[in-house]
């Protein structure tokens, strides 16, 4: 079998058995990158030599018996907003064009401890602001399923790298759908964990109260396995939660009997493409056929999620991005007169238009006289949205719906109309506002062959229910294909 066809867990097993090695896997990935990267542009930074050296070190540790575990020796791609010690970390922004961190983010440290081997850093929307990976300062990433289309975003590079076999799995970050939506567009599995499950230390913040790191991978088994590794209580992150229930792989069973699934009617109204609707409802039927109880209900407040999200995320971003000022690291304007001018030119030249738009929006909603009317009101709506979910989860184990209203749009079709782009986040962002976990699983394609994903939403700390349902769905899909 071609080594690239392995899932991450499959490759880990083959390496452990001595059927292949970390170096062989890395060579295969690098050869694939050589072949397809020119077209897809999944990565911002690849250091092949360092990646091979790391793979060699992993093989030695595996041979010595000091490195065990399911992902030992498996090549991984890291989204470029996760700090990696000694490796360029740009957030796909010009303002961090030369930033080499002195420390690695906690999620990367956990992966390294487990023996996963970093290939490089994946492209993304600048500072994770965007839904298409077109706002990157380093060029657009194309969807490997159809290169005329976007891979989604902001973790588009990570999703595309998985879809293109340019890695075995990847890490992304999700502030409003940035893992689930590109996973859906590229036909891979992606999970946003419960807020506080994966340490944010070393993740370059966009919206601190919404950001979570999560996996993009080939199947649900990989997802559960990666989740076990990156979930960790971290004293360096005050919002990190100590959990004792992170044995996610225990939920990899094809059994959804009695599982109560709610279908929010509000998610199936205008704007949703019929083909997406059909594929998602078909997934619900497959679960029902396996014994799940499926019911429609009204979630309410869905239309308020977008304004609430863009108020809170932009407010936090406007403050989080203040540190990029040309003083300490990163890009500094070449010519300026005095401090104020240096700030102005550095930030004007260093940030792209979407980032500037959100900084301005965020600064506005926090400014004196508008704070109560916008920011504070958004926090109150956020609390109401959480309450609506609480009520739903009193009745259902899982909420099932689409990830995005459409399949991947064509390249260049989204940026001209930012409001339209923001609206496409409607099904994903409320989870970030409520801190809930969400899983995107591929459930088919549209007529043009573009992938469609279903979104499984759980209550806080209920990732295992999502993994169980996702796994059952995956088994059902396999049955359909065969």
């Amino acid at each position, binding site marked *: 079998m071609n080594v690239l066809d392995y899932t991450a867990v499959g490759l880990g097993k083959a390496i452990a058995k001595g059927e292949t090695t970390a170096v062989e896997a890395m060579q295969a990935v690098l050869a694939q990158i050589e072949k397809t990267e020119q077209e897809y542009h999944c990565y911002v930074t690849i250091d092949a030599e360092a990646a091979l050296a790391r793979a060699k070190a992993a093989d030695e540790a595996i041979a010595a018996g000091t490195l065990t575990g399911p992902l030992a020796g498996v090549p991984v791609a890291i989204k470029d907003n996760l700090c990696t010690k000694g490796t360029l970390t740009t957030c796909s922004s010009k303002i961090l064009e030369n930033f080499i961190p002195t420390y690695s983010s906690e999620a990367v440290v956990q992966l390294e401890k487990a023996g996963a081997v970093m290939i490089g850093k994946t492209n993304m929307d600048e500072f994770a602001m965007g839904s298409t990976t077109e706002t990157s300062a380093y060029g657009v990433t194309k969807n490997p399923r159809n290169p005329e289309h976007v891979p989604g975003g902001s973790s588009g590079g990570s999703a595309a790298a998985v879809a293109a076999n340019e890695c075995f799995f990847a890490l992304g970050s999700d502030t409003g759908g940035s893992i689930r939506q590109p996973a859906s567009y590229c036909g891979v599995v992606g999970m946003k964990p419960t807020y506080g499950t994966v340490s944010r*230390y070393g993740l370059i913040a966009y919206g601190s109260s919404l950001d979570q790191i999560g996996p993009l991978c080939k199947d649900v088994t990989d997802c559960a396995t990666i989740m076990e590794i990156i979930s960790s209580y971290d004293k360096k992150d005050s919002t990190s939660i100590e959990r004792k229930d992170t044995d996610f792989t225990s939920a990899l069973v094809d059994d959804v009997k009695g599982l109560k699934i709610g279908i929010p009617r509000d998610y199936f109204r205008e704007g949703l493409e019929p083909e997406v609707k059909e594929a998602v409802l078909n997934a619900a039927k497959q679960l029902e056929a396996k014994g799940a109880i499926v019911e429609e209900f009204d979630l309410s407040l869905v239309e308020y999620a977008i304004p609430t999200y863009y108020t809170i995320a932009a407010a*936090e971003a406007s403050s989080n991005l203040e540190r990029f000022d040309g003083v300490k690291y990163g890009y500094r304007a070449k010519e300026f007169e005095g401090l104020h001018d240096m700030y102005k030119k550095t930030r004007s030249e260093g940030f792209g238009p979407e980032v500037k738009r959100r900084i301005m929006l965020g600064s506005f909603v926090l400014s004196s006289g508008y704070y109560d009317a916008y920011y504070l009101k958004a926090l109150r709506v956020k609390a109401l949205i959480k309450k609506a979910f609480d009520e739903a989860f009193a009745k259902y184990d899982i909420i099932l719906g689409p990830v995005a209203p459409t399949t991947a749009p064509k390249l260049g079709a989204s940026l001209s109309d930012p409001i339209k782009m923001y609206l496409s986040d409607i099904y994903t962002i409320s989870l970030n506002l409520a801190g809930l976990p969400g899983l995107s699983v591929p459930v088919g394609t549209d007529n043009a062959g573009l992938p469609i994903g279903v979104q499984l939403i759980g209550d806080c700390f209920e990732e295992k229910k999502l993994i169980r349902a996702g796994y059952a769905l995956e088994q059902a899909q396999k049955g359909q294909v065969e």
Partner: protein
Amino acid sequence: MAKQYETVIGLEVHVELATKTKIFCGCSTAFGGAPNTHTCPVCTGMPGSLPVLNKQVVEYAAAVGLATNCTITQNCKFDRKNYFYPDNAQNYQISQLYLPICRDGHVDITLEDGTVKPIRIHEIHMEEDAGKLVHDDWEDVSLVDYNRSGVPLIEIVSEPDMRSAEEVIAYLDKLRLIVQYLGVSDCKLQEGSMRADVNLSVREVGATEFGTRTETKNLNSFSAISRCIENEIARQIDLLEAGEQVVQETRRWDDNKEYSYAMRSKEDAQDYRYFPDPDLVPIHISDEWLERIRSAQPEFKTEKMARYKEEFGLPEYDINIITDSKKLADLFEATTAICNQPKKVSNWIMGEVMRLLKEKEMDAADISFSPENLAKLIQLVEDGAINNSVAKEVFAKVFDEDIDPDKYIEENGLKQVNDEGALKATVEKVIADNPQSVADYKGGKKQAIGFLVGQTMKAMQGKANPGMVNKLLQELLSE
């Protein structure tokens, strides 16, 4: 008749807390150090770094709140104050606006005429200090040192209850003592560990509305604060007398030139876009935690003064000076506990300790000798092992190097000579060598004996028992 004016003053006092590590990371708070050596990704604002609250800061802030009769906000949180400046690594300062840890307190100040006046405290909040910018005019560059970045501060905001420089100084002195007694800060104005901003306005006596106020910054000594207040009162009255308006603005005091200048007016006031810091979780101070902080409150100056009077019968003047510094009060109590001679201990502190502090331009907080060695010295004098002048000499060594007096007098042969035989031989020699003085004495110039005592002490390197020398001389000369 000329108009009569009244001054209205409120203070914002920043106190640097004496925690070992910074407020949001594990870096040292030690003063000094080569630039950017007490730093990490958190306090230099590196991307992806996150703050983690040092709980000691909460305890110190709450302790100050309790000591100043504040209500403690048991559910409080941190907010970000956004502004761009290179000494501020993240370009926002983590502070408290919406729910400060302490509110609605007061301290009582005692004025020179004995009146007691309460000064209300609006709030106390926790925040982080900024780094330090160094401007190198020679090279035309600015450098930044983040060693101070993230050092914990509390800001104590008073109500506009003070009416004169005297009241301001009394209030600051009261705060300084409270903070020092709690041990939460060393309160050194010169090192910037206590800083005050003065909000001041004047109005006609009898007016009910406040006048337009100014805020003056960069005040780093009590005397600078007094000078600045007098200067600002005069400036504002002059403006009003000339029919002009006081402009609401921030001013900066230059203590060398003894005047202030405008930094920015209200129109240029920045919008700090405060909002709750999403990287930090709200702080819950449980009843139990608060009780622990409350029960750890020390005995403050007022209670100490009453106790010293009752327990030790010391003069009020001495008590006031000793209790004016936690260090002196601690020294007094510890030394007394060892030698059980409160009056002698007090005399040493009031005499030699104060003299040496003044001579060496030191703060009482910098005293480094141990109470054990002072107690030993007192005992040596008491036992007649050394005389007073030797004791003062030995004490100077204790003060500087904390030497063991027993060992020191042994090693340097400073023990007092009480042996009558040895003394007599010397006295006889002095009499024989100084016939003129002896003749003077015998001729009725009784003060001549002083010279002979001095010569005897000198001959015995100061170790002679002066009482015995005097007695022997008198005896021998009257023979």
